[in-house]
Protein backbone atom coordinates (compact mmCIF):
# COMPACT_ATOMS: atom_id res chain seq x y z
CA UNK A 1 0.00 0.00 0.00
CA UNK A 2 2.95 2.30 0.48
CA UNK A 3 3.78 2.16 -3.23
CA UNK A 4 1.69 5.17 -4.11
CA UNK A 5 3.14 7.26 -6.86
CA UNK A 6 1.90 10.11 -8.96
CA UNK A 7 1.93 10.36 -12.70
CA UNK A 8 0.76 12.87 -15.21
CA UNK A 9 -2.64 12.58 -16.81
CA UNK A 10 -1.20 11.48 -20.18
CA UNK A 11 0.57 8.52 -18.60
CA UNK A 12 -2.51 7.64 -16.57
CA UNK A 13 -4.61 7.52 -19.72
CA UNK A 14 -2.01 5.40 -21.50
CA UNK A 15 -1.89 2.94 -18.60
CA UNK A 16 -5.65 2.80 -18.42
CA UNK A 17 -5.92 2.13 -22.15
CA UNK A 18 -3.26 -0.50 -22.01
CA UNK A 19 -5.06 -2.17 -19.14
CA UNK A 20 -8.38 -2.07 -20.95
CA UNK A 21 -6.73 -3.75 -23.92
CA UNK A 22 -5.41 -6.53 -21.69
CA UNK A 23 -8.83 -7.16 -20.20
CA UNK A 24 -10.48 -6.93 -23.58
CA UNK A 25 -8.08 -9.50 -25.03
CA UNK A 26 -8.72 -11.82 -22.14
CA UNK A 27 -12.47 -11.52 -22.42
CA UNK A 28 -12.43 -11.96 -26.14
CA UNK A 29 -10.27 -15.08 -25.80
CA UNK A 30 -12.68 -16.36 -23.21
CA UNK A 31 -15.64 -15.65 -25.40
CA UNK A 32 -13.79 -16.67 -28.52
CA UNK A 33 -14.74 -13.58 -30.47
CA UNK A 34 -12.75 -12.14 -33.30
CA UNK A 35 -11.00 -8.84 -33.13
CA UNK A 36 -8.61 -8.77 -35.98
CA UNK A 37 -6.65 -5.62 -36.58
CA UNK A 38 -8.22 -4.80 -39.92
CA UNK A 39 -11.68 -5.00 -38.48
CA UNK A 40 -13.28 -2.21 -36.64
CA UNK A 41 -13.25 -2.63 -32.88
CA UNK A 42 -16.28 -4.63 -31.83
CA UNK A 43 -18.41 -3.42 -29.00
CA UNK A 44 -18.43 -5.95 -26.18
CA UNK A 45 -20.82 -5.44 -23.27
CA UNK A 46 -21.46 -7.64 -20.26
CA UNK A 47 -24.47 -7.22 -18.00
CA UNK A 48 -25.27 -8.56 -14.57
CA UNK A 49 -29.06 -8.33 -14.57
CA UNK A 50 -29.72 -4.87 -15.93
CA UNK A 51 -26.44 -3.47 -14.70
CA UNK A 52 -23.65 -2.94 -17.21
CA UNK A 53 -20.51 -4.38 -15.64
CA UNK A 54 -18.21 -4.24 -18.61
CA UNK A 55 -18.28 -2.14 -21.76
CA UNK A 56 -18.87 1.31 -23.09
CA UNK A 57 -21.99 3.13 -21.94
CA UNK A 58 -22.35 6.33 -23.91
CA UNK A 59 -18.99 7.91 -23.44
CA UNK A 60 -18.09 6.19 -20.25
CA UNK A 61 -16.28 2.89 -20.02
CA UNK A 62 -17.44 0.62 -17.20
CA UNK A 63 -15.32 -2.19 -15.93
CA UNK A 64 -16.42 -4.08 -12.82
CA UNK A 65 -14.63 -7.19 -13.93
CA UNK A 66 -11.15 -6.02 -13.27
CA UNK A 67 -12.03 -3.48 -10.62
CA UNK A 68 -9.32 -0.97 -9.91
CA UNK A 69 -6.36 -1.25 -12.19
CA UNK A 70 -3.79 -3.66 -10.77
CA UNK A 71 -6.24 -5.75 -8.82
CA UNK A 72 -6.99 -9.28 -9.79
CA UNK A 73 -9.78 -9.99 -12.19
CA UNK A 74 -13.06 -11.01 -10.75
CA UNK A 75 -12.52 -14.77 -10.96
CA UNK A 76 -16.10 -15.67 -10.12
CA UNK A 77 -17.44 -13.73 -13.07
CA UNK A 78 -14.81 -15.07 -15.42
CA UNK A 79 -15.74 -18.60 -14.32
CA UNK A 80 -19.43 -17.88 -14.79
CA UNK A 81 -18.91 -16.53 -18.28
CA UNK A 82 -16.92 -19.59 -19.15
CA UNK A 83 -19.70 -21.80 -17.80
CA UNK A 84 -22.26 -19.86 -19.79
CA UNK A 85 -20.11 -20.04 -22.90
CA UNK A 86 -19.98 -23.85 -22.74
CA UNK A 87 -23.64 -24.49 -21.86
CA UNK A 88 -26.06 -24.85 -24.75
CA UNK A 89 -29.29 -22.85 -24.83
CA UNK A 90 -32.03 -24.61 -22.89
CA UNK A 91 -29.61 -26.16 -20.37
CA UNK A 92 -28.82 -24.76 -16.96
CA UNK A 93 -25.43 -23.17 -16.28
CA UNK A 94 -25.41 -23.63 -12.55
CA UNK A 95 -24.87 -20.44 -10.59
CA UNK A 96 -24.78 -18.19 -13.67
CA UNK A 97 -27.69 -15.96 -12.79
CA UNK A 98 -29.04 -13.21 -15.08
CA UNK A 99 -25.93 -12.68 -17.15
CA UNK A 100 -25.94 -11.20 -20.61
CA UNK A 101 -23.17 -10.64 -23.13
CA UNK A 102 -23.70 -8.38 -26.12
CA UNK A 103 -21.50 -7.97 -29.13
CA UNK A 104 -22.21 -4.99 -31.35
CA UNK A 105 -25.63 -4.68 -29.78
CA UNK A 106 -26.56 -8.29 -30.40
CA UNK A 107 -27.12 -10.66 -27.47
CA UNK A 108 -24.73 -13.58 -27.89
CA UNK A 109 -24.99 -15.13 -24.43
CA UNK A 110 -27.77 -14.87 -21.88
CA UNK A 111 -28.98 -16.71 -18.80
CA UNK A 112 -32.10 -16.14 -16.71
CA UNK A 113 -32.62 -15.92 -12.93
CA UNK A 114 -32.42 -19.72 -12.61
CA UNK A 115 -29.22 -20.01 -14.61
CA UNK A 116 -31.08 -21.36 -17.59
CA UNK A 117 -29.30 -20.44 -20.80
CA UNK A 118 -31.57 -18.44 -23.08
CA UNK A 119 -29.05 -17.59 -25.78
CA UNK A 120 -25.76 -19.16 -26.72
CA UNK A 121 -24.77 -18.13 -30.19
CA UNK A 122 -21.40 -19.82 -29.99
CA UNK A 123 -22.72 -23.32 -29.61
CA UNK A 124 -25.50 -22.65 -32.04
CA UNK A 125 -23.09 -21.50 -34.70
CA UNK A 126 -20.76 -24.43 -33.98
CA UNK A 127 -23.51 -26.94 -34.58
CA UNK A 128 -24.58 -25.08 -37.72
CA UNK A 129 -21.14 -25.47 -39.14
CA UNK A 130 -21.21 -29.23 -39.28
CA UNK A 131 -20.83 -29.27 -43.03
CA UNK A 132 -17.32 -27.90 -42.75
CA UNK A 133 -16.63 -29.79 -39.58
CA UNK A 134 -13.15 -31.03 -40.32
CA UNK A 135 -12.05 -27.55 -41.10
CA UNK A 136 -13.53 -26.25 -37.88
CA UNK A 137 -11.80 -28.93 -35.85
CA UNK A 138 -8.48 -28.22 -37.42
CA UNK A 139 -8.81 -24.59 -36.60
CA UNK A 140 -9.90 -25.22 -33.06
CA UNK A 141 -6.96 -27.56 -32.58
CA UNK A 142 -4.64 -24.76 -33.43
CA UNK A 143 -6.42 -22.50 -31.00
CA UNK A 144 -6.21 -25.22 -28.38
CA UNK A 145 -2.49 -25.55 -28.88
CA UNK A 146 -2.02 -21.89 -28.34
CA UNK A 147 -4.34 -21.74 -25.39
CA UNK A 148 -2.92 -24.66 -23.51
CA UNK A 149 0.59 -23.45 -24.24
CA UNK A 150 -0.10 -19.92 -23.12
CA UNK A 151 -2.03 -20.87 -20.08
CA UNK A 152 0.82 -22.97 -18.80
CA UNK A 153 2.60 -19.86 -17.82
CA UNK A 154 -0.30 -19.35 -15.44
CA UNK A 155 -0.07 -22.67 -13.65
CA UNK A 156 1.45 -21.37 -10.46
CA UNK A 157 0.09 -17.88 -10.32
CA UNK A 158 -3.41 -18.24 -11.65
CA UNK A 159 -4.98 -19.12 -8.35
CA UNK A 160 -7.81 -16.75 -8.86
CA UNK A 161 -8.49 -17.38 -12.48
CA UNK A 162 -10.32 -20.13 -14.14
CA UNK A 163 -8.34 -21.03 -17.21
CA UNK A 164 -10.38 -22.26 -20.05
CA UNK A 165 -10.56 -25.84 -21.09
CA UNK A 166 -11.78 -25.36 -24.54
CA UNK A 167 -14.63 -27.64 -25.33
CA UNK A 168 -16.25 -28.42 -28.58
CA UNK A 169 -19.58 -29.87 -27.70
CA UNK A 170 -20.23 -31.18 -31.15
CA UNK A 171 -17.59 -33.85 -30.49
CA UNK A 172 -18.16 -36.82 -28.22
CA UNK A 173 -16.80 -36.37 -24.72
CA UNK A 174 -14.76 -38.78 -22.76
CA UNK A 175 -14.34 -38.87 -19.00
CA UNK A 176 -10.95 -37.88 -17.62
CA UNK A 177 -10.61 -41.20 -15.78
CA UNK A 178 -11.26 -43.13 -18.99
CA UNK A 179 -8.64 -41.04 -20.74
CA UNK A 180 -6.12 -41.83 -17.98
CA UNK A 181 -6.87 -45.54 -18.24
CA UNK A 182 -6.37 -45.45 -21.99
CA UNK A 183 -3.08 -43.63 -21.59
CA UNK A 184 -1.87 -46.31 -19.17
CA UNK A 185 -2.73 -49.13 -21.50
CA UNK A 186 -0.21 -47.81 -24.02
CA UNK A 187 2.64 -48.12 -21.51
CA UNK A 188 4.85 -51.18 -21.52
CA UNK A 189 3.87 -53.86 -19.03
CA UNK A 190 5.44 -53.21 -15.66
CA UNK A 191 4.48 -53.37 -11.98
CA UNK A 192 3.91 -49.61 -11.88
CA UNK A 193 1.56 -49.84 -14.85
CA UNK A 194 -0.53 -52.44 -13.03
CA UNK A 195 -0.62 -50.36 -9.88
CA UNK A 196 -1.71 -47.22 -11.71
CA UNK A 197 -4.38 -49.13 -13.63
CA UNK A 198 -5.79 -50.55 -10.38
CA UNK A 199 -5.73 -47.08 -8.92
CA UNK A 200 -7.65 -45.53 -11.78
CA UNK A 201 -10.13 -48.40 -11.83
CA UNK A 202 -10.79 -47.87 -8.17
CA UNK A 203 -11.24 -44.17 -8.86
CA UNK A 204 -13.80 -44.95 -11.55
CA UNK A 205 -15.71 -47.24 -9.20
CA UNK A 206 -15.75 -44.61 -6.48
CA UNK A 207 -16.89 -41.97 -8.95
CA UNK A 208 -19.88 -44.12 -9.79
CA UNK A 209 -20.65 -44.70 -6.13
CA UNK A 210 -20.35 -41.00 -5.38
CA UNK A 211 -22.84 -40.11 -8.05
CA UNK A 212 -25.42 -41.88 -5.91
CA UNK A 213 -24.84 -39.87 -2.79
CA UNK A 214 -24.51 -36.19 -2.30
CA UNK A 215 -21.05 -35.82 -0.95
CA UNK A 216 -20.49 -33.58 2.01
CA UNK A 217 -17.42 -32.26 0.24
CA UNK A 218 -19.16 -31.64 -3.01
CA UNK A 219 -18.89 -27.91 -2.73
CA UNK A 220 -15.18 -28.00 -2.07
CA UNK A 221 -14.62 -30.37 -4.97
CA UNK A 222 -16.67 -28.10 -7.21
CA UNK A 223 -14.44 -25.22 -6.24
CA UNK A 224 -11.40 -27.29 -7.02
CA UNK A 225 -12.77 -28.14 -10.46
CA UNK A 226 -13.01 -24.45 -11.26
CA UNK A 227 -9.23 -24.25 -11.46
CA UNK A 228 -8.32 -27.28 -13.52
CA UNK A 229 -4.89 -25.91 -14.41
CA UNK A 230 -3.82 -25.46 -10.82
CA UNK A 231 -1.64 -28.42 -9.84
CA UNK A 232 -1.50 -27.64 -6.14
CA UNK A 233 -5.03 -26.47 -5.43
CA UNK A 234 -5.56 -28.63 -2.34
CA UNK A 235 -2.24 -27.67 -0.81
CA UNK A 236 -3.12 -24.00 -1.28
CA UNK A 237 -6.62 -24.56 0.07
CA UNK A 238 -5.25 -26.16 3.23
CA UNK A 239 -2.75 -23.36 3.79
CA UNK A 240 -5.25 -20.60 3.18
CA UNK A 241 -8.56 -21.47 1.61
CA UNK A 242 -9.35 -17.89 0.66
CA UNK A 243 -6.49 -17.92 -1.87
CA UNK A 244 -8.38 -20.39 -4.02
CA UNK A 245 -12.03 -19.98 -3.01
CA UNK A 246 -13.74 -16.70 -3.69
CA UNK A 247 -16.47 -16.89 -1.07
CA UNK A 248 -15.59 -19.07 1.88
CA UNK A 249 -18.87 -20.26 3.41
CA UNK A 250 -19.47 -22.64 6.31
CA UNK A 251 -19.69 -25.69 4.05
CA UNK A 252 -16.27 -24.86 2.66
CA UNK A 253 -14.86 -24.39 6.15
CA UNK A 254 -16.30 -27.70 7.32
CA UNK A 255 -14.95 -29.39 4.23
CA UNK A 256 -11.46 -28.08 4.92
CA UNK A 257 -11.63 -29.19 8.55
CA UNK A 258 -12.76 -32.63 7.50
CA UNK A 259 -10.04 -32.76 4.87
CA UNK A 260 -7.39 -32.04 7.49
CA UNK A 261 -8.74 -34.66 9.88
CA UNK A 262 -8.88 -37.24 7.13
CA UNK A 263 -5.37 -36.33 6.11
CA UNK A 264 -4.06 -37.08 9.63
CA UNK A 265 -5.88 -40.40 9.73
CA UNK A 266 -4.62 -41.26 6.31
CA UNK A 267 -0.97 -40.63 7.10
CA UNK A 268 -1.40 -42.55 10.38
CA UNK A 269 -2.77 -45.54 8.53
CA UNK A 270 0.05 -45.31 5.99
CA UNK A 271 2.67 -45.36 8.77
CA UNK A 272 1.02 -48.32 10.47
CA UNK A 273 0.90 -50.21 7.20
CA UNK A 274 4.60 -49.53 6.60
CA UNK A 275 5.40 -50.63 10.15
CA UNK A 276 3.53 -53.88 9.66
CA UNK A 277 5.24 -54.48 6.36
CA UNK A 278 8.73 -53.83 7.69
CA UNK A 279 8.37 -55.70 10.95
CA UNK A 280 6.54 -58.87 10.07
CA UNK A 281 7.24 -61.92 7.97
CA UNK A 282 5.34 -62.21 4.69
CA UNK A 283 1.92 -63.66 5.36
CA UNK A 284 1.91 -62.65 9.03
CA UNK A 285 -1.43 -61.47 10.29
CA UNK A 286 -0.50 -59.89 13.58
CA UNK A 287 1.99 -57.47 15.01
CA UNK A 288 2.05 -56.86 18.71
CA UNK A 289 3.99 -53.86 19.93
CA UNK A 290 4.44 -52.19 23.27
CA UNK A 291 1.14 -50.36 23.28
CA UNK A 292 -0.58 -51.28 20.06
CA UNK A 293 -1.63 -54.32 18.18
CA UNK A 294 -2.15 -54.48 14.44
CA UNK A 295 -3.96 -57.42 12.93
CA UNK A 296 -4.53 -58.08 9.31
CA UNK A 297 -7.07 -60.05 7.33
CA UNK A 298 -6.17 -59.87 3.70
CA UNK A 299 -6.08 -56.20 2.83
CA UNK A 300 -8.02 -55.11 5.92
CA UNK A 301 -6.01 -53.92 8.91
CA UNK A 302 -7.31 -53.33 12.40
CA UNK A 303 -5.39 -51.41 14.99
CA UNK A 304 -6.19 -51.64 18.66
CA UNK A 305 -4.82 -50.24 21.86
CA UNK A 306 -3.07 -52.86 24.00
CA UNK A 307 -4.18 -51.10 27.18
CA UNK A 308 -7.90 -50.98 26.50
CA UNK A 309 -8.23 -53.64 23.81
CA UNK A 310 -10.39 -51.19 21.89
CA UNK A 311 -10.14 -50.87 18.16
CA UNK A 312 -8.85 -47.43 17.24
CA UNK A 313 -8.57 -47.73 13.51
CA UNK A 314 -9.50 -49.85 10.58
CA UNK A 315 -8.02 -49.36 7.16
CA UNK A 316 -7.72 -51.14 3.89
CA UNK A 317 -4.57 -51.49 1.87
CA UNK A 318 -4.95 -50.32 -1.73
CA UNK A 319 -2.59 -50.59 -4.69
CA UNK A 320 -1.17 -47.17 -4.09
CA UNK A 321 -1.82 -46.60 -0.46
CA UNK A 322 -4.43 -47.01 2.20
CA UNK A 323 -8.07 -46.25 2.59
CA UNK A 324 -9.21 -45.46 6.09
CA UNK A 325 -12.47 -47.24 6.87
CA UNK A 326 -12.79 -46.16 10.46
CA UNK A 327 -10.64 -43.93 12.55
CA UNK A 328 -11.06 -42.95 16.14
CA UNK A 329 -7.63 -41.77 17.19
CA UNK A 330 -7.22 -39.61 20.27
CA UNK A 331 -4.53 -36.95 20.51
CA UNK A 332 -2.06 -39.26 22.32
CA UNK A 333 -2.44 -41.91 19.68
CA UNK A 334 -1.99 -39.35 16.92
CA UNK A 335 1.19 -38.21 18.68
CA UNK A 336 2.46 -41.80 19.05
CA UNK A 337 1.91 -42.50 15.38
CA UNK A 338 3.51 -39.23 14.44
CA UNK A 339 6.66 -40.31 16.37
CA UNK A 340 6.49 -43.65 14.59
CA UNK A 341 6.32 -41.90 11.23
CA UNK A 342 9.33 -39.81 12.14
CA UNK A 343 11.32 -42.92 13.12
CA UNK A 344 10.39 -44.73 9.93
CA UNK A 345 11.33 -41.73 7.83
CA UNK A 346 14.66 -41.19 9.52
CA UNK A 347 15.36 -44.89 9.88
CA UNK A 348 15.75 -44.46 13.61
CA UNK A 349 14.87 -47.08 16.25
CA UNK A 350 11.13 -47.46 16.72
CA UNK A 351 9.53 -45.61 19.61
CA UNK A 352 8.85 -47.93 22.54
CA UNK A 353 5.10 -47.77 21.93
CA UNK A 354 5.67 -49.58 18.65
CA UNK A 355 8.67 -51.73 19.55
CA UNK A 356 7.85 -55.36 19.02
CA UNK A 357 7.55 -57.40 22.16
CA UNK A 358 10.48 -59.55 23.37
CA UNK A 359 9.93 -62.72 21.44
CA UNK A 360 10.11 -61.03 18.09
CA UNK A 361 13.22 -59.19 19.15
CA UNK A 362 15.05 -62.38 20.12
CA UNK A 363 14.19 -63.92 16.79
CA UNK A 364 15.31 -60.81 15.05
CA UNK A 365 18.77 -60.92 16.58
CA UNK A 366 19.08 -64.59 15.76
CA UNK A 367 18.58 -63.82 12.08
CA UNK A 368 20.92 -60.80 12.22
CA UNK A 369 23.60 -63.07 13.64
CA UNK A 370 23.02 -65.70 11.00
CA UNK A 371 23.33 -63.12 8.23
CA UNK A 372 26.44 -61.38 9.58
CA UNK A 373 28.15 -64.74 10.20
CA UNK A 374 27.46 -65.84 6.64
CA UNK A 375 28.90 -62.60 5.22
CA UNK A 376 32.04 -62.98 7.36
CA UNK A 377 32.40 -66.62 6.31
CA UNK A 378 32.25 -65.47 2.71
CA UNK A 379 35.09 -62.99 3.35
CA UNK A 380 37.11 -65.74 5.05
CA UNK A 381 36.59 -68.00 2.02
CA UNK A 382 37.82 -65.18 -0.21
CA UNK A 383 40.73 -64.56 2.20
CA UNK A 384 40.21 -60.84 1.94
CA UNK A 385 37.77 -58.07 2.73
CA UNK A 386 34.90 -58.29 0.28
CA UNK A 387 32.72 -55.45 -0.89
CA UNK A 388 29.59 -55.94 -2.94
CA UNK A 389 27.81 -52.99 -4.49
CA UNK A 390 24.53 -54.40 -5.73
CA UNK A 391 22.68 -52.85 -8.61
CA UNK A 392 19.41 -52.35 -6.81
CA UNK A 393 19.11 -52.50 -3.09
CA UNK A 394 22.20 -52.85 -0.95
CA UNK A 395 25.89 -52.21 -0.66
CA UNK A 396 27.79 -54.27 1.86
CA UNK A 397 31.24 -55.34 2.93
CA UNK A 398 32.63 -57.93 5.28
CA UNK A 399 36.12 -58.72 6.47
CA UNK A 400 37.65 -62.03 7.56
CA UNK A 401 38.19 -60.33 10.96
CA UNK A 402 34.42 -60.29 11.51
CA UNK A 403 33.55 -56.68 10.63
CA UNK A 404 30.39 -56.17 8.62
CA UNK A 405 28.87 -53.05 7.14
CA UNK A 406 25.56 -52.97 5.27
CA UNK A 407 23.88 -49.98 3.78
CA UNK A 408 20.67 -49.55 1.83
CA UNK A 409 20.68 -47.83 -1.52
CA UNK A 410 17.13 -46.57 -1.20
CA UNK A 411 18.14 -43.60 0.90
CA UNK A 412 17.92 -45.17 4.34
CA UNK A 413 21.71 -45.23 4.75
CA UNK A 414 23.60 -47.56 7.09
CA UNK A 415 21.53 -50.51 8.25
CA UNK A 416 24.10 -52.56 10.11
CA UNK A 417 27.53 -51.97 11.53
CA UNK A 418 29.42 -54.78 13.26
CA UNK A 419 32.84 -53.82 14.49
CA UNK A 420 34.62 -56.11 16.92
CA UNK A 421 32.15 -56.86 19.67
CA UNK A 422 29.86 -53.96 18.85
CA UNK A 423 26.74 -54.41 16.80
CA UNK A 424 24.44 -51.67 15.71
CA UNK A 425 21.53 -52.72 13.54
CA UNK A 426 18.47 -51.21 12.06
CA UNK A 427 17.77 -53.96 9.57
CA UNK A 428 14.09 -54.43 8.94
CA UNK A 429 12.51 -57.81 8.57
CA UNK A 430 12.45 -57.27 4.83
CA UNK A 431 16.17 -56.48 4.74
CA UNK A 432 16.89 -59.65 6.68
CA UNK A 433 14.72 -61.66 4.32
CA UNK A 434 16.76 -60.39 1.43
CA UNK A 435 20.07 -61.37 2.99
CA UNK A 436 18.73 -64.73 4.05
CA UNK A 437 17.79 -65.34 0.45
CA UNK A 438 21.26 -64.61 -0.86
CA UNK A 439 22.98 -66.75 1.78
CA UNK A 440 23.10 -69.85 -0.47
CA UNK A 441 25.05 -67.85 -3.03
CA UNK A 442 27.64 -67.07 -0.40
CA UNK A 443 28.41 -70.71 0.30
CA UNK A 444 31.89 -71.72 -0.94
CA UNK A 445 31.64 -73.33 -4.38
CA UNK A 446 31.96 -77.06 -4.50
CA UNK A 447 34.66 -76.73 -7.16
CA UNK A 448 37.11 -74.06 -6.06
CA UNK A 449 38.51 -71.75 -8.64
CA UNK A 450 38.74 -68.11 -9.49
CA UNK A 451 36.20 -68.42 -12.31
CA UNK A 452 33.47 -69.62 -9.93
CA UNK A 453 34.32 -66.91 -7.41
CA UNK A 454 34.17 -64.27 -10.13
CA UNK A 455 30.84 -65.58 -11.38
CA UNK A 456 29.35 -65.76 -7.89
CA UNK A 457 30.47 -62.23 -7.28
CA UNK A 458 28.96 -61.03 -10.52
CA UNK A 459 25.69 -62.69 -9.63
CA UNK A 460 25.63 -60.90 -6.29
CA UNK A 461 26.25 -57.59 -7.94
CA UNK A 462 23.11 -58.16 -9.95
CA UNK A 463 20.97 -58.68 -6.85
Amino acid at each position, binding site marked *: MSDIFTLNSGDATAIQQHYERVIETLLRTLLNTENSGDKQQQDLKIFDGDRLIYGRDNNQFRDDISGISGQLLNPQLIAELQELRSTPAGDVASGVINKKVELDGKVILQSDRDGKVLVNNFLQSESNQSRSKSEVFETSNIVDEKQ*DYDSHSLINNSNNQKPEIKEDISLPFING*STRVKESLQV*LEDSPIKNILISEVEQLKTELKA*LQQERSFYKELIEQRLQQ*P*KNTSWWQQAINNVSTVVQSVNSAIKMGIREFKENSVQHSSAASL*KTLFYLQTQPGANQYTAGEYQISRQGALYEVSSEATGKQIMQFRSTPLGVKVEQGNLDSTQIQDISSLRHS*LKKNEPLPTTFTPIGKQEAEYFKVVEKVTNALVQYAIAQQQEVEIDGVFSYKWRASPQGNVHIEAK*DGRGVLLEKDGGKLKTNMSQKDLNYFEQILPKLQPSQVEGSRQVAEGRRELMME
Partner: protein
Amino acid sequence: MQTLQTHWNTEVSSLLEKYPQWQKMLMSAIDKPQLDVGYCPFVIEIFDQYGLLAGKINKFGCYECKRSSNQQSKFVAWMFDGELAIFYVDLHMLLNRIAIREELTL
Protein backbone atom coordinates in the same frame (compact mmCIF):
# COMPACT_ATOMS: atom_id res chain seq x y z
CA MET B 1 13.72 -47.98 -8.88
CA GLN B 2 13.29 -44.61 -10.48
CA THR B 3 12.87 -44.84 -14.19
CA LEU B 4 14.07 -41.73 -15.86
CA GLN B 5 15.53 -40.72 -19.08
CA THR B 6 17.12 -37.36 -19.44
CA HIS B 7 18.07 -37.93 -23.06
CA TRP B 8 14.66 -38.07 -24.60
CA ASN B 9 14.09 -38.47 -28.24
CA THR B 10 13.58 -35.35 -30.30
CA GLU B 11 9.83 -35.80 -30.46
CA VAL B 12 9.48 -35.95 -26.68
CA SER B 13 11.92 -33.08 -26.17
CA SER B 14 10.14 -30.79 -28.59
CA LEU B 15 6.81 -31.68 -27.01
CA LEU B 16 8.10 -30.74 -23.58
CA GLU B 17 9.43 -27.47 -24.91
CA LYS B 18 5.87 -26.53 -25.76
CA TYR B 19 4.88 -26.84 -22.12
CA PRO B 20 7.67 -25.05 -20.30
CA GLN B 21 6.00 -25.17 -16.90
CA TRP B 22 5.56 -28.90 -17.10
CA GLN B 23 9.06 -29.29 -18.46
CA LYS B 24 10.37 -27.35 -15.49
CA MET B 25 8.35 -29.40 -13.02
CA LEU B 26 9.53 -32.59 -14.65
CA MET B 27 13.19 -31.61 -14.58
CA SER B 28 13.02 -30.61 -10.95
CA ALA B 29 11.14 -33.80 -10.02
CA ILE B 30 13.78 -35.92 -11.73
CA ASP B 31 16.38 -34.48 -9.39
CA LYS B 32 14.32 -35.34 -6.36
CA PRO B 33 14.66 -38.66 -4.51
CA GLN B 34 12.08 -41.36 -4.82
CA LEU B 35 9.08 -41.10 -2.58
CA ASP B 36 9.54 -42.72 0.81
CA VAL B 37 8.99 -46.42 1.04
CA GLY B 38 5.38 -46.93 2.02
CA TYR B 39 4.41 -43.39 1.02
CA CYS B 40 0.67 -43.25 0.42
CA PRO B 41 -0.59 -40.10 -1.26
CA PHE B 42 -3.63 -38.48 0.32
CA VAL B 43 -4.47 -36.55 -2.82
CA ILE B 44 -3.85 -38.03 -6.25
CA GLU B 45 -4.51 -35.78 -9.23
CA ILE B 46 -3.86 -36.58 -12.85
CA PHE B 47 -3.26 -33.91 -15.47
CA ASP B 48 -2.61 -33.50 -19.15
CA GLN B 49 -1.75 -30.34 -21.06
CA TYR B 50 -5.34 -29.09 -20.75
CA GLY B 51 -5.33 -29.41 -16.99
CA LEU B 52 -7.00 -31.75 -14.57
CA LEU B 53 -8.20 -35.13 -15.86
CA ALA B 54 -9.21 -36.79 -12.62
CA GLY B 55 -8.58 -36.60 -8.90
CA LYS B 56 -9.01 -38.69 -5.81
CA ILE B 57 -8.85 -37.83 -2.16
CA ASN B 58 -8.76 -40.49 0.47
CA LYS B 59 -12.20 -41.00 2.02
CA PHE B 60 -13.19 -37.63 0.64
CA GLY B 61 -14.18 -38.10 -2.92
CA CYS B 62 -13.23 -38.49 -6.54
CA TYR B 63 -13.77 -36.13 -9.43
CA GLU B 64 -12.96 -35.81 -13.08
CA CYS B 65 -13.11 -33.46 -16.04
CA LYS B 66 -14.09 -34.24 -19.59
CA ARG B 67 -12.20 -34.14 -22.83
CA SER B 68 -13.58 -34.04 -26.32
CA SER B 69 -12.15 -36.45 -28.85
CA ASN B 70 -10.07 -33.72 -30.47
CA GLN B 71 -8.41 -32.94 -27.18
CA GLN B 72 -5.81 -35.66 -27.15
CA SER B 73 -3.64 -35.89 -24.08
CA LYS B 74 -0.07 -35.27 -25.16
CA PHE B 75 1.30 -36.33 -21.80
CA VAL B 76 -0.09 -37.57 -18.53
CA ALA B 77 1.20 -36.39 -15.18
CA TRP B 78 0.29 -37.88 -11.81
CA MET B 79 0.64 -35.54 -8.87
CA PHE B 80 0.79 -37.00 -5.37
CA ASP B 81 -0.08 -34.43 -2.72
CA GLY B 82 0.99 -31.68 -5.11
CA GLU B 83 4.28 -33.38 -6.05
CA LEU B 84 4.93 -34.69 -9.52
CA ALA B 85 5.37 -38.46 -9.15
CA ILE B 86 4.67 -40.01 -12.55
CA PHE B 87 5.01 -38.51 -15.98
CA TYR B 88 4.68 -40.24 -19.31
CA VAL B 89 4.36 -39.38 -22.98
CA ASP B 90 2.70 -42.12 -24.99
CA LEU B 91 4.64 -45.22 -24.02
CA HIS B 92 7.65 -43.34 -22.69
CA MET B 93 7.73 -43.28 -18.92
CA LEU B 94 9.82 -40.20 -18.22
CA LEU B 95 9.39 -40.10 -14.47
CA ASN B 96 8.48 -42.70 -11.87
CA ARG B 97 9.23 -41.79 -8.29
CA ILE B 98 7.38 -44.71 -6.76
CA ALA B 99 9.45 -47.37 -5.08
CA ILE B 100 7.54 -50.57 -5.57
CA ARG B 101 7.49 -52.98 -2.71
CA GLU B 102 5.17 -55.74 -3.68
CA GLU B 103 3.99 -56.51 -0.19
CA LEU B 104 3.09 -52.88 0.28
CA THR B 105 0.84 -52.93 -2.72
CA LEU B 106 -1.18 -55.92 -1.57
